[in-house]
């Protein structure tokens, strides 16, 4: 069950009224809410949480956005090079060096290539 519930619904509100309703839903149904950040919340991936999210959208229409997110596992989703690049760059000695210069002339992936490549589904 843990694995089944590891994905979450992302609920974003775009008006004061929708934000207020989101706050109330989060207060009333704590068990359905993984976390709330102001006008944004992560709902558990249960049908009840989805029902609450849909209710919000019924009430506030386009002022409510619902997305489904999945857990991020960098060991599944990415080439080792990307992980190594992040570590190496954060350990750099000169903080002012931008990544593009840092990667130039090394084995590290260049930022242009990183931008072009999507994380596989």
């Amino acid at each position, binding site marked *: 069950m843990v694995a089944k519930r590891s994905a979450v619904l992302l609920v*974003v509100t*775009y*008006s*004061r009224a929708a934000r207020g309703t989101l706050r109330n839903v989060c207060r009333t149904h704590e068990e359905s809410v993984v976390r709330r950040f102001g*006008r944004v919340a992560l709902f558990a991936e249960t049908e009840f949480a989805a029902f609450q999210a849909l209710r919000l959208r019924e009430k506030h*229409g*386009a*002022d409510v*956005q619902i997305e489904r997110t999945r857990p991020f596992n960098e060991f599944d989703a990415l080439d080792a090079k990307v992980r190594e690049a992040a570590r190496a760059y954060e350990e750099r000695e000169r903080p002012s060096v931008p990544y593009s210069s840092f990667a130039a002339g090394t084995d590290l992936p260049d930022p242009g290539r990183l931008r072009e490549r999507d994380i596989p589904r």
Partner: protein
Amino acid sequence: MTDALTVRIGDECRTGRAVDCSGRSLDPERVVSAVRGVTADRSAPATALSVTCPDPGPVHDHVGLLTPSVTPRTRTALATAARSRGVETPVDDDLASVRAALADAEVPAAPDLERARRRLAGTESAVDECRERVATLRGRLQARREEGRDTSGLEGELAEATAALSEHETERAAAREALAMARREARASRDARERRRKLEDRLANLERTARDHLVAAVRDRYAAAVAAAPGDSRASGDGSLADADPFAADDVTAALAVARVADLRAPVVLACDRFADPADAAAWLDAPVIRVPCPA
């Protein structure tokens, strides 16, 4: 005195700064509507009601009707009363510019994401079904061939199923593209909604600041009005009104006090019995008054 008012009920006409209609059976709400000119009176000519008076300002919405069951939002009403007296605040310029920005804020219409999602959801399952059907037919065809049986009928079925699969795959591709496009449009709409929401937040903050300032500006005047208000039903039972919080006064007293602080041009519809007569009320409130019977 330019704020005399005229009340006509049927062919009866009463004029003055304090008009006494307490002998008439009149719904206070109906009188207030007539003062505000919001609804045309559709009653029979004999009881048709009209009030001729200066246009009510925003504060009239708060204290234009005083009944025994008023529930004023005292601070908001008092801030509006302060405005009626011309009190200004340091955030007025910001308020005006944020209101103007909000009035100009345009939010592009949200695309029909639901339709795009529904269309895609249908195609996903159709492709899956077709793919399964094609695989099943292939398996059966293979088996028949191995058994050396006639396959022409099955070949026809497979060709149909393959064509259907291809059709559904095309539709799915189109549905995906349509959803992607709708999502791009939605982003623009959400960006605009987000900007509007930020402006609304800013407006709410400024309004709070302005209200605090306005309330502070007339607080003493309001406290004095509460202390001087007629009637004996007050929040503090011990009578030490000087020390009492004027914002803890009972609702009727609070509403009367706000009305006394306000500069009211349009008549107050008075449906509570705190005053001996309408003229007393008009004098105390420093406002024109229409006295109507207390609601039952």
